[in-house]
C-alpha cells in the first residue's frame, strides 16, 4: 500500500536542470563502483580502437616476412574489407561481456557496462551496415553514409544516453522561447529540426532514386525526368516544412499570420527572388527548358545543365558554367535549338570558279558532306545555288546534324573536307579579284 501522491512535479528551469545534472554526474563519479566501470569501458575502448592499427601492423610485418605471399592469400584480401571496420566494435563487445561476467561474479553493479554493451552493439550494427553498403556500391555510398546513416546513428546514441539519464529528459519539455502565445521547448525545436532534416534528406534520396530508375522505366527524356525528380524533391521539402512548423506548435492560423507578415517582406525586398522562384516553377511545369537543351542566349550558344527553382545553370561551349536567374528566361527572347527536335541545319557557304563544271561541283560537295560522321543521311544534304558572285559561283551546302553544341567544329571540319576534295578533283576556288580597266587614249593625249 504505497502512500499515493499526486504526480505533479515541480518544473525547474533549464539552468537548474543542467546544474542538477552536472552535480549528479559529479556525485555519481565519486563512487568506486562507477569509477571501476568507467575505467573498464575506457580501457576497452582504448584497446579496441587500437585493434585495427595492430592488425595493420601485423599485416605489414607478415608482408615483409613473406614478400608477396600475403597478397596471394585470397581469404585475407577478401576478409580484410570487413576485418578493419568491424574489429573495434566486435572486440569491444567481447571484452565488455568478459568484464560484465567478472563484475557479476564479484557482485559489483554492472549496469553501466551493460549500457555500454548495448551501445557497442549499435556501433557494430552501424559499422556492419556501412561496410556492406561500401562493399556493394563502393564510393557511391559516401553521401548516404555522411548525410543519412551517420546522423541516424548519432541521434540513436544520444537518445539512448538521454533516455537512460534521470531528469535529463525533462530538459526537452522546458520552454526556451516564446513566439506570440506559442511557447517552444527544446524538444519542439529538436523534433522540428530532425523532422525537417529527415524530409530534406528524403527529398534528396527520392530525387536520386527517380533520376536513376525512371529513365529505364519510362523511356522518357532526361530533362523531363530531372524536372519530375526536382519537383518531387521540392514537394517533399514543402511537406516537411509544414510538419516541422506544426511540431513547433504553429497551427494553420499562426502560419497564416506568419505568411501575412512574410508577404509584406516579400513585396518589399524579396520580389526578385519570388519572381525567379515563380519563373522556375513555370519553367519546370512548362518544360520549356530542359537539361540538355541547346539554347541561344544573348548571341551565345549554351547547353542547359540544370533547372532549379531560383536559377538555371548553363554551360557555354568554352565549358564555363553560367548561373542565370530564371526570370530572364520568362522575360527575354531565348532561341532554343532543340525545343522539339535535336536536329539542326548547318549552312556552309562556298564558291567556285566560273569555269567549273557545276554538276561535278555539286556531286563532290555532297559526297564530301556525307563523309563526316555527324552528317545525317536523313534529311539528306543539299546544295543550294546562291547566284553569281563577283568572281565566282556562290553555293551553300546545307546539312543536318544532332549535336548542336558541336556545330562550329562541324562546320570547320566540313570546310577542311571541302578544300581537300576540291583540290583533289581540280576544282578551283578563285582568289577574290578586281578587273582594272585603264583607258590608254586619255593617257596618250596628256589630259
Amino acid at each position, binding site marked *: 500500500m504505497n502512500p499515493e501522491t499526486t504526480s505533479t*512535479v515541480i518544473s525547474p528551469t533549464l539552468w537548474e536542470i543542467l546544474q542538477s545534472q552536472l552535480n549528479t554526474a559529479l556525485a555519481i563519479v565519486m*563512487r568506486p563502483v*562507477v569509477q571501476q566501470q568507467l575505467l573498464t569501458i575506457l580501457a576497452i*575502448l582504448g584497446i579496441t580502437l*587500437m585493434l585495427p592499427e595492430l592488425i595493420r601492423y601485423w599485416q605489414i610485418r607478415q608482408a615483409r616476412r613473406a614478400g608477396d605471399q600475403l597478397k596471394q592469400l585470397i581469404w585475407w584480401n577478401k576478409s580484410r574489407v570487413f576485418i578493419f571496420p568491424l574489429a573495434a566494435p566486435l572486440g569491444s563487445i567481447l571484452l565488455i561481456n568478459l568484464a560484465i561476467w567478472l563484475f557479476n561474479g564479484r557482485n559489483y553493479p554492472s549496469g*553501466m557496462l551493460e549500457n555500454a554493451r548495448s551501445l557497442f552493439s549499435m556501433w557494430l550494427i552501424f559499422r556492419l551496415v556501412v561496410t556492406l553498403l561500401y562493399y556493394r556500391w563502393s564510393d557511391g555510398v559516401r553521401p548516404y553514409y555522411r548525410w543519412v546513416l551517420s546522423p541516424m546513428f548519432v541521434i540513436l546514441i544520444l537518445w539512448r544516453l538521454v533516455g537512460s539519464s*534521470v531528469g535529463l529528459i525533462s530538459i526537452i519539455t522546458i520552454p526556451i522561447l516564446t513566439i506570440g502565445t506559442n511557447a517552444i521547448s527544446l524538444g519542439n525545436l529538436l523534433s522540428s529540426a530532425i523532422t525537417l532534416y529527415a524530409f530534406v534528406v528524403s527529398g534528396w534520396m527520392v530525387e536520386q532514386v527517380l533520376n536513376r530508375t525512371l529513365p529505364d522505366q519510362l523511356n522518357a527524356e532526361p530533362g523531363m525526368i530531372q524536372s519530375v525528380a526536382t519537383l518531387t524533391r521540392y514537394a517533399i521539402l514543402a511537406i516537411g516544412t509544414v510538419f516541422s512548423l506544426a511540431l513547433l506548435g504553429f497551427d494553420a492560423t499562426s502560419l497564416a499570420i506568419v505568411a501575412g507578415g512574410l508577404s509584406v517582406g516579400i513585396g518589399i525586398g524579396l520580389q526578385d527572388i519570388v519572381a525567379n522562384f515563380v519563373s522556375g516553377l513555370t519553367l519546370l511545369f512548362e518544360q520549356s527548358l530542359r537539361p540538355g537543351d541547346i539554347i541561344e542566349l544573348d548571341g551565345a550558344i549554351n547547353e542547359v545543365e540544370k533547372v532549379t527553382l531560383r536559377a538555371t545553370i548553363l554551360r557555354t561551349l568554352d565549358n564555363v558554367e553560367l548561373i542565370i536567374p530564371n526570370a530572364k528566361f520568362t522575360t527575354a527572347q531565348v532561341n532554343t535549338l532543340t525545343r522539339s527536335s535535336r536536329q539542326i541545319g548547318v549552312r556552309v557557304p562556298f564558291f567556285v570558279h566560273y569555269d567549273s563544271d557545276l554538276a561535278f561541283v555539286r556531286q563532290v560537295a555532297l559526297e564530301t558532306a556525307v563523309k563526316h560522321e555527324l552528317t545525317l543521311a536523313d534529311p539528306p544534304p543539299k546544295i543550294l545555288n546562291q547566284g553569281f558572285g563577283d568572281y565566282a559561283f556562290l553555293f551553300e551546302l546545307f546539312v543536318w546534324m544532332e549535336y548542336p553544341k558541336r556545330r562550329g567544329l562541324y562546320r570547320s571540319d566540313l570546310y577542311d573536307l571541302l578544300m581537300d576534295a576540291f583540290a583533289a578533283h581540280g576544282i578551283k576556288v578563285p582568289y577574290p579579284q578586281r578587273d582594272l580597266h585603264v583607258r590608254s587614249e586619255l593617257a596618250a593625249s596628256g589630259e
Partner: protein
Amino acid sequence: MLKRSIYLLAGGILFLGLVSCRGFLSETQRINGRIIVWHSWNSTETAVLLEALRDFQEINPGVQVINVPLTPNELLPRFIQAAREGSGPDLLIGSDDWIQELADANLIRPYTSQTGVPINGLARQAITYRGNLYGLPLFLAPYALYYNKTIVSGTIARTLDDLLTQAAQGRRVAFVPRFEDAFWGIQTFGPNIFDRAGNLNLADSGLIPWLDWLSEMQNRPGVILNVDDASLEELFIQGRIAYYVAGPEKQAIFNATMGEESFGVTTLPSGPHGAASPLLPVETMMFYEFSSPDQAILATTLAEFLANQQQGIRFMRELNKLPANPQISVDSRIYPNVSGFWRQSFTAVVLPNTFEKSSLITAGNRAYAATLSGALTPESAVCIFGLEVAAANSLTAEQITLPPQCELPETQP
C-alpha cells in the same frame, strides 16, 4: 587513429585519477560532498522538503543535496535501474513495501544509527528485514475514518454497529474491500492473522468473521463497498458519503476541494473483539548500497536530520503528514485531522517481513474478492488464502494454522 585512442585512454584515466584523489582529500573533511535524494513527492511537498534541505545545507555548508522528484510510478523501477548501474540516489524516500525486494537485490544497505534517532516500535518492525534496519522511518500512513462534518453533525460512529445504524439512517459509509485497504476490520472480530512470533494464524483469527461481516453488510442500505477508490473519493468530496476509510494522503485533496473545516478524521470503528487495526504503511528513507563512504555518512546524517523532531513537526504543520518520530506528540487542538491518524497508529499493525508481501497481498485480495462476489464462503476463501501463502513462502505446519477442514498438503519426504 592510434594517437587518438591513446589520448582518449590517457584522458579518461587522468580524469578518473583526479576524481579519485579528490575522494581521498575529502577524508580529512568529513561533512563535505554531494549526495542525491530521490522521492515522488508532489510540488507542494517538494517545496517543503527543499526548505528542510536548505536548513540542512546551512548547517553543513560543504554539503550539496541534489533533489530529484520523480513520479510515483517511475520511482521504484528507475531506482532499480540506476542502482544496478551504480548511479542510484544516496537516499531514496519511498514505501517500506520495497525493502524486501531492494534488500534481496543488494541495492540498499542497513541503517546504522549515528545520532540515535528514536524509531517508532511498529515502524521499526516494518523496516526490519533479516535482522537489520533497512532505512529510517519518516512518516506513518495508517488508514482512518474520514467523516463529513456537515452530514455527521451529532455522534460520530465509534463501533461497527454505530456505523451500520448511521448508514441505515442515510449517513452512508464507503471503503475499498481489498486486503490492504480493509485489513483494519480483522482484529475487530478476533486476533490478528499473525501471532507474536510472526506465524500465520488463520484458525482463530478475525479474518473469517470479518469477511463474513463484509459479505453480509455489502447489501445493507447505506454501505458502499467498491474497489474503485477514485469514485468513492469523488462521492465523499461531493458530500454523498458521510464516512470514508482512507489514508492520510487524501487530506491534501479534501483540503483543496472541500476545505479543511468540512471534514474530520477519527479512528476506525471498533468491533466485538476490540479496536480496529489497519496496516501501517511507513514512508521510509532507504540508503543506497553503493554510495561512496563519504556519501554514505552524508546520507545517514541527512536522513537523521529529516527524521528529527523539529523537521517532523515542520512536515506535519506544512503537509499534514504524520511523523514517525515517537517523540512527537500530536495535539488534537492544533492538528485535529493528523491526530486522528496519530491515534489510529497506536492500534495499527504491520505485515511481518518474514513473508513475501506481494504473495500475501495477491492471495488476500483474491480471498476478499471471492467472498464478496459469493464465489466462496469465508472459510473456503481463507483456507485457499492460507494454502497460497504457505506455498509461496514454503511454510511448514509449525508456521501456519489453518481453519478447520483445511489442511496443508503433505510434503514429500
